[in-house]
């Protein structure tokens, strides 16, 4: 064995056995540093004859690169071991809870109003609004309820002491119907609108609150009749409840602002103690529920709104938004809608990403 062989065996063994990065670095300096033994041997090449160099050159270069490779390999092994040792100390108990971020929610009334807007947009209805503090002309007179009309008294109206500059008594609107008048006056005909919003009646028990939400629908055009009204309500309810088996029962009724007036019942079925809309109300295990008031807009109302009733006719309907929300999403106490109870909002509220769309179905499944 030559000296070089001896040196190499010795170096590689020591490198292989270097216990840590520091010892390995010391070996690198010892062998390959500026004063290192292999570096020293490399320097002897310059003094050699070309013949010697031709022999010794490759040998020494081989020694240097093999040593360097061994150091790199050993370094990788040591680093890896060190990393593993460090990681072993870094393990976390991932059964511990993660950081919480608050979950917000959209109120069922808003959600349902968005759903209604989506459905009716497809039928060509835009969304109209009007003031909640109304005057008695828009809330009553223009809707064919003259001051002495008995139906006025049936509205449990909240009044303000104020009158406006036309001498009209100010009040909280008792229904969204005044928006019909305002929209017709502003837009003329033909018109298709829904008008959702807050309405007020002086009434309070488990199913009545002094403030609630209604949505009004209005279609004024030529040749619109009760058949269109029925279709519209059927189509809307089928889309809203996402059921094809919605059955309507129309009953004659009376509203001063429509003639003929039609009360609309919807068939329901008892499913585990809950009233679920769908099916014929006369079928066994079924019943009828009064859901909407509607009718053909009274010619006088069309006249009050500045249109010619000989030319224009149409229908209007009204339905409780809170009621629709309760029927669809299963709440049973109206008062809770207006309490702001964190627990109720967490339970019945909707994800902000439940934006109603026609392609996904407007409803948000539980």
């Amino acid at each position, binding site marked *: 064995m030559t000296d070089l062989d001896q040196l190499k065996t010795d170096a590689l063994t020591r490198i292989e056995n270097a216990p840590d990065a520091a010892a390995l670095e010391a070996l690198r300096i010892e062998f390959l540093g500026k004063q290192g033994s292999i570096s020293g041997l490399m320097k002897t090449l310059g003094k050699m004859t070309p013949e010697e160099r031709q022999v010794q050159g490759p040998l020494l270069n081989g020694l240097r690169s093999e040593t360097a490779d061994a150091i790199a390999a050993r370094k990788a092994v040591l680093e890896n071991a060190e990393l593993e040792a460090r990681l072993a100390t870094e393990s976390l108990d991932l059964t511990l809870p993660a950081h919480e971020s608050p979950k917000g929610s959209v109120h069922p009334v808003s959600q349902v109003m968005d759903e209604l807007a989506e459905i009716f947009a497809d039928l060509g209805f835009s969304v109209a609004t009007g003031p909640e503090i109304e005057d008695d002309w828009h809330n009553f007179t223009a809707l064919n309820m003259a001051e002495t009309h008995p139906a006025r008294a049936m509205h449990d109206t909240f009044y303000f002491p104020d009158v406006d500059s*036309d001498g009209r008594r100010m009040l909280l609107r008792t229904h969204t119907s005044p928006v019909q008048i305002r929209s017709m006056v502003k837009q003329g005909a033909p018109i298709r609108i829904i008008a959702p919003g807050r309405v007020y009646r002086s009434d309070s028990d488990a199913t009545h609150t002094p403030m609630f939400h209604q949505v009004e629908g209005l279609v004024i055009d030529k040749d619109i009749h009760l058949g269109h009204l029925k279709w519209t309500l059927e189509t809307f309810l089928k889309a809203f409840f996402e059921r094809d088996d919605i059955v309507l029962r129309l009953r004659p009724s009376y509203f001063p602002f429509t003639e003929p007036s039609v009360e609309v019942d919807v068939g329901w079925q008892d499913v585990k103690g809950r009233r679920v809309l769908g099916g014929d109300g006369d079928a066994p295990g079924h019943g009828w529920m009064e859901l909407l008031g509607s009718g053909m807009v009274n010619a006088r109302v069309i006249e009050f709104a500045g249109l010619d009733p000989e030319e224009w006719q149409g229908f209007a309907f009204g339905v409780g938004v809170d009621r629709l929300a309760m029927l669809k999403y299963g709440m049973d106490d109206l008062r809770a809608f207006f309490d702001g109870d964190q627990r109720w909002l967490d339970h019945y509220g909707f994800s*902000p990403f439940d934006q109603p769309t026609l392609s996904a179905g407007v409803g948000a499944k539980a």
Partner: protein
Amino acid sequence: MKFSLEWLKYFLDTDAGVADIAAALNRIGHEVEGIEDPADRLAGFRVAKVLTADKHPDADKLQVLTVDTGEGDPLQVVCGAPNARAGMKGVLGLPGAVVPANGMELRKSAIRGVESNGMMCSVRELELGEEHDGIIELPEDAPVGQTFADYHDASPVFDVAITPNRPDCMGVQGIARDLAAAGLGTFKPVEVTAMEGEGACPVEIRTDDPEGCPAFYGRVIRGVDNNKPSPEWMQRRLIAAGQRPISALVDATNYLMLAFGRPAHVYDLAKLSGPVVARRAKNGERVEALNEKTYALDDTMTVIADDNDVHDIAGIMGGEHSGATEATTDVLLEIAYFDPERIGVTGRKLGLASDARTRFERGVDPAFLDDGLAILTSLILKTCGGTPTKVARAGEAPAEPKVIAFDPHLTSHLGGIDVAQDEQRAILGSLDFVVADDWQVTCPPRRHDIEGPADLVEEVVRIHGLDHVTSVALPRAEGVAKPTASPLQKQERKLRRAAAARGLNEAVTWSFLPTADAEHFADGAELWVLDNPISEDMKAMRPSLIPGLLAAAKRNADRGAYGSRLFEIGRRYFRGKGGASDEKPTLGVVLAGNKTSRGWAEGKSEGFDAYDAKAEAMALLEAAGAPVGNLMVMGEAGDQFHPGQSATLRLGPKNVLARFGALHPKTLKTFDIDGPVMAVEIFLDSIPAKKGAGFARAHYAPPALQSLTRDFAFLVPADLAAGDLVKAVRGADKKAIVEARVFDVFEGQGVPEGKKSVAVEVTLQPGEKSFTDAEIKAISDKVVASAGKQGAELRG
């Protein structure tokens, strides 16, 4: 309105059962709200005969009866009624039966040691009347063993909601007529026998107020006996209708009203003096009505009065003083026609409701005065006897019949159903309309609700059947449905979902507040305050969304919630032009309680601070489309806020888009909630609309060269707003500096008194070429110089 089947059949010849009648009523617009079958309540009660009656061994007032029930062995029953005796027939309640009057279930029991197997019942116990002096005594021919429901011919009672346009159906006769038109049987008109009377009416009848009382008919009946009860058949019908029998005279008028929808009044002639006149009341005149309350009248109200007193608030309620009593022997009957509007106004002014008012203000049949008076007279004579005089008539009820030119094609044009013209004619005819060959339709005078052709369509359609209406699709615009939402609607939708996505819960709170709470947030605005609130807590329309949310947060805290993050999008109510309202769309946020709960990693729970409010304000303003980069943070958030921890966000010095911050401790005290509580209010109507925005964004290509940051630590006066410093720094080189961000604020050791250290990280964005050292130096110098103008010096 309630009526029994048996009463209905008096006017309607029909074989239809209860269910069919109910269905027909619903079909033609008289909504059935309930059907009560007294047979259900009388289950377990049967006709029984008392065989023996012996004294109870241990009780003086009790007897021990043996009673034949028609089957099996006679039963032993203990009874306390003084009239119980052997041989009589009565009504026995068997064990298991429930006493209608008190809901008690009968049981086999021992009374003072003697077994009793049921109860002999009184009239009152079975709710057949008021009598309770003894048990019911049935006639000898009553069949023992028959169920009492059958024996008594108990008749199902319908409870029907009559819509306000149909006063003609506020009597059983009208309902029968409608049902007959709907094919449920044959209408049986009551044959009215003319009641001529003897001698002229001795009382002068007059109307001095032909506007309020166009017609006033009257007659006297002498020698009546009002001590007898009204006949059993009448009492039964009245009770079924929910009307307590009172006396023969009163019952007769009630019967006329409920059977024919025709109110009338009976005066005790002895209490009247001089002519009886319909006239306007005098201002301040008073009358004690039959409900024993005294009403002050004014000269818009019609009354019936004699020389001395007002005896009747016309069409609403009679006077206590001149009403019929048991001692009454001579009576004056009044049947009049009052102006419906006047009755309504008077009733509302007095706050007085009555069955008579309900009918008069909706309109009674103007052609039914003579017949009504004849029927009433005959009802009284049958029970009370007496001799009627001739009728005295003052004035005339409006008799001009309404004639409507009807086009039968309107039925399909408006009603959407094709009904053959013959059928239309027949339907209108069955409802007493007279249809001429040329379709001029003459309306029966009792149908005040018929105003025009649309009303006739309704008559035809409801009798023909609304269920024949078939759905017809609305014409649809071509192509995909067009967007319909207005900019405000889109803004609100986006804002709502942005707020929810930020972890806020949407609440819907009352629009009205307790006045004190509203005042606290009014900032001098004149509130809208209700005249007739449902409670003091719901009186004033909100001038801010914060109080409602604050009250909700308090309720949540009281329920033990660790924190509330509530928002609401709704209106604030202010005064607008011309006495109208100005309702401003607004978003409110309240952050109360804990922001984070204590955690293994986070440590103690943490409350909200004003910067949390600022974060919501900025993020939501951005979602609402406000130019948040241009907003100025200014003061004057309002007295409701902590003066040092609140601010407004403005676009220009005057346009306040939002306010936010910590609420003032006084506000928290007013609402009795523990603080600190943060609030935000965004005034959506102040956010300028985006003009002419299309879909395409402004052109942008990410810069090729890397940006670099430089940190500057400044010593600034302690009261310098960091925002002003940052603005100065940013403004130092508007082209190169794209961002300036405070990353440290420090006061205390090492910082001179009256100063604070603010460290700002400045981001520089090179354009075409990288910055040279000299350029960076120049920018840095400009930053220091610009900050220097705010009193800032670079820290050494």
